[in-house]
C-alpha cells in the first residue's frame, strides 16, 4: 500500500470523528474545520517525511487534535492553513450543516450546552467514549492515564453532565 492509499484509508476512517471531537470543544464549525484540516495536513506531512512509524493512528490523530486545541485556546487564533493559497471553499460548497439540524432538537441542544459547562477533560472523554466509540485502552493511551483511572473519569463525567442537566 503506498502512502496515498494509506492516507486515504485513515482519512476516511477518522475524519468525522476528529471533526466531531474538535467541534464539541470549540463550538464553531469554521474553527473545527480549520483545526481538523491541520490535523490531517500534519499527518500527511509526517507520512511523507518518513517519521517514526505510527503504530496507533487513532491515538496519534487524537493527540494531534488535542495539541492543536491547546494551542488554539492559548492564542485564541488560528495559523492559516498551509494550503490556503489554493482555492477556498465557499459556504455554498460546504453545504448545510448537520449541526444546524442538531440544534433543532431540544434534547440534543441541551446535552450539547451541558457538555460545554463541564470540565474540558470530562467533555473530551465523553465525546471520545460515547460518540467516537473509542475503547478504554485507546483512551488510556490518549490521556496517558491508567485504564482504571479512565473508567473513574467516565463515571465522574456522566455524573457532572447529569448535574448540569437537572
Amino acid at each position, binding site marked *: 500500500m503506498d502512502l*496515498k492509499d494509506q*492516507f*486515504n484509508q485513515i*482519512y476516511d476512517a477518522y*475524519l*468525522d470523528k476528529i*471533526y*466531531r471531537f474538535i*467541534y*464539541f470543544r470549540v463550538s464553531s*464549525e469554521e474553527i*473545527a*474545520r480549520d483545526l*481538523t*484540516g491541520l490535523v*490531517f*495536513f500534519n499527518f*500527511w*506531512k509526517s507520512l*511523507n*517525511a*518518513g*517519521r*517514526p*512509524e505510527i503504530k496507533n493512528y487513532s491515538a496519534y490523530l487524537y493527540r494531534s487534535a488535542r495539541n492543536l486545541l491547546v494551542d488554539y485556546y492559548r492564542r485564541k487564533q488560528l495559523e492559516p492553513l*498551509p*494550503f490556503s493559497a*489554493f482555492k477556498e*471553499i465557499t459556504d455554498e*460548497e*460546504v*453545504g*448545510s*450543516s*448537520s*449541526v444546524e*439540524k*442538531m440544534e433543532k*432538537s431540544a*434534547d*440534543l441542544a*441541551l*446535552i*450539547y450546552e451541558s457538555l460545554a459547562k463541564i470540565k474540558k477533560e470530562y467533555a473530551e472523554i*465523553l*465525546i471520545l467514549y*460515547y*460518540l467516537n466509540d473509542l475503547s478504554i485502552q485507546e483512551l488510556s493511551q490518549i490521556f496517558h492515564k491508567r485504564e482504571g483511572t479512565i473508567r473513574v473519569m467516565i463515571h465522574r463525567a*456522566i*455524573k457532572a*453532565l*447529569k448535574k448540569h*442537566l*437537572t
Partner: protein
Amino acid sequence: MTENEIIEKLKGLKAVEPQAQWKNWLKSQILASFKAEKAEFQREKPKAKVASQPLVLGFSFYRYRWVAASLILVLSLTATGVLAQKATPYSFLYPVKKATQALILKLTPDERRPALQLAFTEDKINALNHLSGEAKIKLQAEIKNDLKETYQQITKIDKPSRLLAISQELDEKTKKIEEKAQNHPEIESSISQTRTEILTLIENTQKLSTNCPNYLNNILEQLKNNPLLEKLTPSQIAEISRLMGDAQTALMANVCVDALYDLEAINRIAPQLGINLTGQNSTSSAPAVSSQTPSSSLNNENLIDKIESTTTAPSGATSAESTDSFSTSTLSQ
C-alpha cells in the same frame, strides 16, 4: 433524566459530522500539497544526518569528557534528546539516541560500562520484535557488534576484584539476554558464545582471586627488607611504598590477584629488585608476569594452574613446602 438516558442522548450527537463536499475538498487540498512538502523534507534530511555524526566520530572523549558531559546534559534536557531516548531503531531520532548512548558509555567508569552496554543491547533485542527486513538485519549486526565490545570492555577492567564485584550482575544480565534471544535464532548463537566467554573469564578470575598463596606474602615481606630499596629515587620509593600498602591490603582481604598486580607494578618501576612472580627459577625462560598487561594476565592459564596447585597442595604438605616451589629466587639480591 437517568444516566442511561443521558448516555443515549449523548450518542445522538453522533449526527454531528462535516459535509461531504468539504471532506472531499479538504482531502484534495492536502494531497495536492504532497509534492512541495516532500521536496522540503528531502532537503532537510541530510542536515539532520550530518549534525548527528560528529557526536560519535573523531571525538577525543577523554580529553573533552566534560564537554561531552555538558552535551549529554543539554541533549537530555532538550525535547529532541528526551524524545530520542524513546526512539526505536532506525527511526527518525535513532541516530541521536545512539550518539547519546555512545557518549554515556564513554563517560561511565570501566567496571560499570559492560553492564550498561548489556542494558542497551537488551533494549535492542526487545526492538527486534517490532522490526522486519533490512532494518532487522542491521540491528542484528549491531547487537553482535555490541556483544563483542562488551567482552572487550570486560577484559579492560583494570583490577580483577572489580570484575568480581560485577560478576553476578554480568551473569544475570547475559542470562536475561540469552533468554530473550531464544526468539531470534539469527543472534542466539552469538549471544550464547559471548555469555560463555564472559563466564569463563569470570571463573578464571575467581580462581585467581581466592586463597592467596603464601608465596605472595613472602615476596612482600622480603621486599620490605630489601636493601636495594634504599638505592631508589625518592619518587620511586614513594610509589613503591604506596603499592606495597595496596598489596598488603589486598592480601589481607584475600584478593590475591590485586596483590599480584600491585607487585607487578613494583616490578615495572624497579626491575632491579628482581621480583619473580612466575614462581619459576630465575634462570627459567618463562616470560615474566611483569611484561604482561592486566587483561592478558586474566587469561593466563599457567598462572591460574600454579596458584591452584599451591592452594590445593596435598594435605600432608606444609604450607612452607607448597610455597617453596614458587619462592625460589623471589628476590634475587
